[in-house]
């Protein structure tokens, strides 16, 4: 049984609110790290493969092997 002005109950409520705020802040931090990673990786999309000018895949070697 709790009363409206029970200091113990008020302290528990306050602690719960603080715990929720910390949890929210931690979730926000994780989300931000995730977003930063996605945006940063988004800037380096894999581009089309460009064959080196020398070696087996070079245009010259390809023309030599029809």
């Amino acid at each position, binding site marked *: 049984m709790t009363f409206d002005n029970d*200091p113990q109950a*008020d302290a528990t409520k306050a*602690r719960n609110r*603080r715990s929720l*705020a910390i949890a929210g802040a931690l979730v926000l931090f994780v989300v*931000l790290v995730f977003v*930063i990673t996605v*945006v*940063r990786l988004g800037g380096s999309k894999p581009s089309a493969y460009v064959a080196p000018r020398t070696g087996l895949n070079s245009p010259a070697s390809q023309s030599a092997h029809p």
Partner: protein
Amino acid sequence: MTQAVTEAADKTALAGPGDYFQLLKPRVMSLVVFTALTGLVCAPEPLHPVLAAIAVLCIAVGAGAAGALNMAIEGRTDALMRRTRGRPVAAGRVSKNDALAFGGVLSAFSVMLMGMAANWLAAGLLALTIVYYAWFYTLVLKRRTPQNIVVGGAAGAFPPVIGWAAASGHLDLNAWLMFLIIFLWTPPHSWALALYTTEDYAKAGIPMMPVARGAKSTRLQILLYSLVMVPVAILPVFTGLGGTLYAGVSIVGGLGFLALAFRLWRSKAGDRPEGGEAGLYDVKAETKAARNLFAFSILYLFSLFAALLFEHGLTKALA
């Protein structure tokens, strides 16, 4: 003694998220965010909008963390001053250790995120600003010299530089010009406030200029700093940072600033200590000039940076 400790523990047990938010000095944070955003937008190289938003958030949280560390360290002094005695640590709603931990963790998170989102130059500058304000200004300068606000003003001048560094990865003359404007603006702004809260600072033993050198000397120094600051605030027009709108705002606003600083110099603001508990924020004839300059200085700085933000934001939006 035991009862007092128990009562203090009871008070801190009831602290809510709102008390911790107050530790971040939200009003100071809003001006920091605004100037940082201006630095970021004015930088020549654009930053991805999402990363830019995270960078501004990091600067806001970093500034708030520095404020929390300041309040943790200054709890006892704040409790002596009417202007600050309602702050969470001073009022006993948050313990000193909790405030220190809160400020420390937020500092680490904000610097780390800034490094990841933008670059490590901006992160380093943010870390430097936090240490400068929380340690150098609060612990070293504030109680030792009446020049505390002059040297300590650098902490408040860094946000646009951090914003600029976050976007471009380097710093140039225009970034330092924004720094210089806020740096020179801080003494007249803070001393105008100190002129009508002299009694409070004296009670707390803080050697603010009116306490240490008297009101007359403070009024003269406000005028001298204003005479230097106003032309410096017009300089961006010549370096290409500010356009026509900025030129108008800086000239008209600067003339207004000088007129109010001159009127304050001619006044008797701060000469007579204000009496009574209720007197702190009452408008009294002899402090009106100081209050007018204090209020106008906020509007002036806001207008300067709003003009820059508008001009550069518009240019980038149209590009």
